[in-house]
């Protein structure tokens, strides 16, 4: 991609992805021609409803759900996480008031749990090891008879570590609880099968599969009942009232279909680029480390930390050379707190500040990775020369 002759390399795909042009093409008729409300009796309405159901089927196929009706459309992963956690907790309040989750969840899970604490629920954030893998022994200990819901991220988009969902599911079910999985970053990159993985509820994001933003889904196992967050006309089996975002849902279906057909080859391609980039940063630059697991890792994720410097300075320098990435540094975030995910893996604050997240996507090539590999050592060197921190300082 080039603009004004400056090379532009976008590598912030976990934050936002472009919409596939095949997805845009199927969406367009639903703005000006097929604009009916799926709840309407007439032809315009029934056409929209049929299209909606087709999308439901495409998404249920991607995750091997037992039937299309298990897919509930929402406004995105944040709403799906809210609906799963609050909907399950409140529905099962009489049976138990404890929720167990992990220390590396997305803020929509963290803050949903915290909002329930204010309503008398208990939440335990189960720890992870230095690779970001859930400690399964501690997890099992944390699930008591009061626990009816366990919520775990399939793979955290920031560090890329993929959790052993199958093993987690066994533990959760043995203890008599239900398992919600946030598959926002995973679904679309690695095979996700709710049946094989033993998942009861699962959050799916549309933009993470190159569909439009503002739409997502919650998979809800056929036999399960939850309380809705939004009350109204009873759309989506009464679990998500409000006229459906038809054009986006149509796009979502297409995005899921493309993902199902192309994911394997695309992921294989990305893993090669990812690993060459990781090696190309860690080997030549001293005091540089990989965040997350080297093998159990999302194909798009390169998360590294450079000691003695701060992430926002790295991002600024990269952007000046046309590379657009992300950081777990506090200074690059709204909260002024370094990423809780990096801290949960045992990193010191100053180490978390020096992290750089590169997330690859469909338009990235090996050439992009080579350009980044050539660019970064100079940036790190310049910033380290300016830094008062040294290897001695960090040990303190």
């Amino acid at each position, binding site marked *: 991609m080039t603009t004004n002759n400056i090379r532009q390399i976008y590598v912030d795909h976990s934050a936002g992805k472009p919409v596939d042009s095949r997805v845009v093409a199927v969406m367009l008729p639903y703005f000006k021609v097929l604009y009916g409300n799926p709840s309407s009796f007439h032809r315009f309405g029934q056409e929209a409803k049929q299209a909606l159901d087709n999308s439901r089927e495409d998404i249920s196929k991607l995750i091997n759900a037992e039937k299309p009706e298990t897919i509930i459309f929402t406004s995105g992963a944040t709403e799906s996480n809210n609906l799963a956690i609050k909907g399950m907790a409140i529905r099962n309040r009489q049976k138990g008031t404890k929720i167990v989750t992990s220390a590396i969840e997305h803020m929509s899970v963290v803050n949903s749990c915290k909002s329930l604490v204010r309503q008398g629920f208990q939440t335990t954030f189960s720890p992870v090891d230095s690779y970001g893998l859930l400690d399964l022994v501690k997890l099992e200990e944390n699930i008591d008879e009061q626990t009816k819901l366990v919520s775990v991220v399939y793979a955290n988009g920031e560090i890329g570590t993929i959790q052993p969902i199958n093993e987690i599911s066994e533990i959760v079910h043995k203890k008599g609880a239900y398992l919600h999985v946030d598959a926002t970053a995973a679904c679309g990159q690695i095979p996700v099968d709710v049946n094989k993985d033993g998942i009861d509820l699962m959050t799916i994001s549309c933009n993470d599969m190159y569909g439009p933003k503002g739409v997502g889904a919650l998979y809800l196992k056929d036999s399960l009942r939850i309380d809705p967050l939004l009350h109204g006309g009873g759309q989506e089996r009464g679990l998500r009232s409000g006229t459906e975002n038809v054009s986006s849902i149509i796009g979502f279906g297409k995005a899921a279909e493309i993902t199902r057909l192309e994911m394997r080859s695309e992921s294989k391609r990305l893993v090669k680029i990812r690993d060459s980039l990781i090696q190309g940063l860690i080997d030549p630059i001293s005091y540089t480390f990989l965040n997350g697991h080297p093998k159990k890792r999302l194909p798009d994720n390169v998360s590294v930390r450079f000691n003695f410097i701060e992430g926002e*300075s790295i991002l600024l320098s990269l952007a000046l050379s046309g590379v657009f990435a992300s950081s777990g540094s*506090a200074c690059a975030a709204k909260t*002024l707190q370094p990423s809780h995910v990096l801290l949960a893996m045992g990193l010191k604050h*100053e180490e978390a500040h020096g992290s750089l997240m590169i997330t690859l996507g469909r338009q990235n090539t090996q050439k992009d990775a080579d350009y980044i590999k050539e660019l970064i050592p100079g940036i790190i060197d310049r910033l380290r020369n*300016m830094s*008062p921190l040294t290897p001695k300082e960090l040990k303190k």
Partner: protein
Amino acid sequence: MYSNKVMDHFTHPRNTGEITDADGVGTVGNPTCGDLMTMYIKVKDNRIADIKFKTFGCGAAIATSSMTTELAKGKTIDEAMKISRASVAESLGGLPKVKMHCSNLAADALHAAIEDYKGKLEKNKEAKK
């Protein structure tokens, strides 16, 4: 997000480095918070003859450090003490709101270096007595 002036000082920071025989050294901030800076000054005839900095921090932290050294160089000790966080931010054409507190520490580092210099001066006087 940043003004052109901030970006200029970030990409071409003035007076980076250390002064090994500095007359005053001041360090403020904390790497835990993501900002740490050290100012080194050399004083001649009650004026800041030379000044250098080392900073760990975001773009704003580096730019404010650079701007502070530029404002302080050649000033008398009293004039340099009047350089404030606000005047540094203003000289840079403003800073984003969230950066005004955590990353705008360079004036404090300068003042700390001057205090260090004054303290040493006092000690020398005492020693001579």
